[in-house]
């Protein structure tokens, strides 16, 4: 995983090597209009200036996860059920957000 740029499995448990005292993790789920978890949604992380930083695809649990830094971030989800945008003020440790996509 360390020598690639592709997204790891988003449903996997947080690796034991991740130190939440040091890392800033943005995580959460994508849900549709019926409140169902959305698999295969494209979730991108935009920095404080709106610049693209990273993108992952949600797995069966509708989950996404980014390793970032403390500060303001925007989450943007695209799916066949529609889109969603969320703002996060991240601190060290786990930061959880739910994104509800709609047309």
């Amino acid at each position, binding site marked *: 995983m360390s020598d690639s740029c592709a997204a790891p499995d988003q449903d996997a448990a947080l690796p034991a*090597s991740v130190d939440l005292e040091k890392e800033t993790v943005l995580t959460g789920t994508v849900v549709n209009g019926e409140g169902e978890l959305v698999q295969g949604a494209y979730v991108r992380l935009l920095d404080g200036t709106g*610049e*693209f*930083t990273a993108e992952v*695809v949600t797995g069966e649990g509708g989950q996404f996860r980014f390793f970032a830094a403390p500060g303001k971030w925007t989450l943007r989800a*695209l799916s066949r059920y529609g889109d969603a945008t969320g703002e996060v003020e991240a601190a060290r440790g786990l930061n959880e957000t739910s994104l509800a996509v709609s047309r």
Partner: protein
Amino acid sequence: MAREDVLVTADWAEANLDTPGVVFVEVDEDTAAYDSGHIKGAVKIDWKDDLQDPVRRDFVNQEQFSQLLSERGIANDDTVVLYGGNNNWFAAYAYWYFKLYGHQDVKLLDGGRKKWELDARDVVTEVPQRPATNYVAGPLDWSLRAKRDEAEAAIGVKNLIDVRSPDEYAGRLLAPAHLPQEQSQRGGHIPTALSVPWSKAANEDGTFKSDAELREIYVDEAGLDESKATIAYCRIGERSSHTWFALRELLGYEDVKNYDGSWTEYGSLVGVPIALGDEPGTK
């Protein structure tokens, strides 16, 4: 070269799924994506297992590439249409290989797997059986590939385009934000490199922006000097393949190279200059 010679739409792809001589190839790191459903008739290439040398840090050589394409049933005169995940990073990386080894007719599917999925187009799990061929790759075309000394010699001389995220460019992050920050090499960028994240070349759905938009991004906004040669780099060379494609194949600049050693190599070299922060820095 016209845009439609190197980039095809999802509509074109859907209309040519059964066209003889057209081979669709999905290129991914996450091959589970292919296994869970792919474009009908598409064969798969694994970014790591198929395209990297198993021992040395380098990619497959001429013989290995010939063997790979022969096994996949791809012929020298086939039209190869590449697509994949991650906004076509790996497909663009493979496209660069096909060009490096002299394949005549290769195209990218605009938007890749993402656009195909967002459009809710059909995918299948059936794996096609293609008879083996005798593919003969050409010698590696070094006019498309930069090595580390060339990257260093380009400081203040050629256009250097750093396509990583702004935080990686500045040295605030060592890896893309969806990966743990576990790397140990130095942060920063090659001095004088312009920061143009690969994502600026793509729309939200993964398709490439128009030629006019691309020219505005690279030339007007970033300050790319059209009279100079260009070297693009990222962390391990696939995001920069995406930008290499935009600059050479779409905008038509002739002397554009991809530095595939990229930051994991340059940022670990002893004694080379490094710039920190948001500005390109000086020679």
